[in-house]
């Protein structure tokens, strides 16, 4: 088990997150084991996105601390953070005229020189990221010609091109049919297993989350209601209680 190495990627202590002075979630004490797949479950508006944005340093916490590799998250230089943590959001991304390869190449930002020139190793990382999400054949395709499922895979590849330790995804299966949802989830699981990447994703499908994640986090009523392996946590009562 990876947890036995005693390494946690992200820890939070007494964390309260929200907008302005209004806390959405409070008293969050987490320790996310390295290389595990962590799902956030909870009703809409419970604060999953808020928590994820705070963990990605897109939103300053109201109270408490977030530790990344045992260092305070707020203290990281932005380039160093970009090499450790990347994101896939639900924001609509319309960058314009790019091929999938060029789009994924944008993820090399923290590694390239000031003109963003790609070196041979950069190209290798980009192609590898594409093949890791089973999208190697999409490399030359125009971004706007991709289907929703293909697009989501390319978005994940862009996050992978940052060579992160941890990827934070907000609803990665939103707008996808079951087949593509399964594929995306399988890809994410593969990243944990093969690359030792910590994946934190909010999900709306309890079944998918239960089947594929290592840990499940139940977000409701202004806090984390439960936290643990899915087989223990997701008994019938909890689920009915949750939604």
């Amino acid at each position, binding site marked *: 088990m990876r947890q036995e190495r005693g390494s946690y990627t992200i820890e939070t202590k007494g964390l309260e997150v929200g907008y302005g002075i209004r806390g959405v979630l409070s008293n969050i004490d987490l320790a996310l084991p390295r290389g595990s797949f962590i799902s956030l479950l909870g009703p809409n508006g419970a604060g999953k996105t808020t928590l994820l944005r705070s963990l990605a340093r897109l939103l300053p916490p109201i109270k408490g601390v977030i530790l990344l590799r045992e260092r305070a998250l707020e203290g990281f230089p*932005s380039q160093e953070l970009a090499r450790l943590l990347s994101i896939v*959001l639900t924001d609509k991304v*319309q960058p314009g005229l790019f091929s999938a390869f060029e789009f994924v190449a944008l993820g090399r930002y923290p590694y390239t020189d000031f003109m963003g020139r790609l070196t041979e190793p950069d190209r290798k990382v980009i192609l590898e990221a594409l093949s890791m999400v089973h999208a190697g054949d999409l490399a*030359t395709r125009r971004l706007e010609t991709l289907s929703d499922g293909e697009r989501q895979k390319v978005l994940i590849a862009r996050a992978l091109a940052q060579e992160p330790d941890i990827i934070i995804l907000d609803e990665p299966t939103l707008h996808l049919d079951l087949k593509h949802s399964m594929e995306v989830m399988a890809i994410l699981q593969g990243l944990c297993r093969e690359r030792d990447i910590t994946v934190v994703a909010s999900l709306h499908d309890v079944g998918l989350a239960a089947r594929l994640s290592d840990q499940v986090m139940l977000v409701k009523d202004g806090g984390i209601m439960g936290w643990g392996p899915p087989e223990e946590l997701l008994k019938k009562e909890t689920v009915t209680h949750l939604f």
Partner: protein
Amino acid sequence: MDRYVLPKNRRHILLFILLLVALLACMAVNVMSGSIDIPVSSLMHMISGHDTLSTNGFIVWNIRIPRTIAAVFGGACLAVSGLLLQVFFRNPIVGPFILGISSGAILMVSLVMLTSISLNIAHLTPFLTTLSALAGAVGVLAIILVIASKTKNPITLLIVGLMMGYLCHAVTSVLVAFAEQEKIKGFVLWQLGSFSGFKWSEIKMLLLFGGALLVVSLALGKSLNALLLGESYASSMGVNIRIQRFLILLCACSLSGMVTAVAGPVAFIGLAVPHMARLGFATSDNRILVPATILLGGIVTSLCDLAARLIFSPVELPISAITALFGAPIVISLLTRRRVME
């Protein structure tokens, strides 16, 4: 592995060479044609011998060449300004004057041209119009930068810019209402923009400051690309949003403000040229688009200026009329053709 990169790169290099040649050709045609046509052979002679004494030599060196440089360079600045703001606001219909830069300049110029405030200071400088336009542009730019440092939301900034435009416009229209008839005509013509009457001293200033701003804009390409994904993604990739936002706004507004100060508010170039570059090069990669808009902005503007001079010669048409008359159909056809291709 290179197959993803090379053919496209080659195409881009070819396009750049083509644009450069076209730009030089446009400049030559601009210098040669006018009320007196100057043949290539004597043009070469005049330029190589720095002949400013003969009548034609005087026309070429003191009227045509400054005007050509002003049109090319001013067009390049406006086009880059438009590109920067289109990326910044992630909105394709944004132009360099969306933040009220030109309205500020127009307001200050209207104060000078339409009221009698200028009577006491007119003798101070021959560049009174230029200086007042610059003051107006810088004033609006300062307000925009202060507000940009206080708000995170680009849309708020966009609306503030629009409101600034309306405010300046309101004051200007009051001034117009009280102004004398003959003053109004001069003001209206200034408002339509023109690259005529440039002095070499102005050209040097334009090249120096504009050149520096264009170099900074070239260096912004990488972070502009990251910003195409929105601020959340950009900051997750390591972009320092606050610094980049400041630099982008400073460059975009200074570029357009500077051109407005010397040539008046030349419309449309900043809105249309980035689209032409994007579709011509078939990419949204700003590291390519910034140099492409510089060249294309120069070409389009110098052609429009040529047309403005020649169509109803000796009457000169306002450049903004030409840029819109020719530019709008081109942009529409480019955009719709692309839609069909998809």
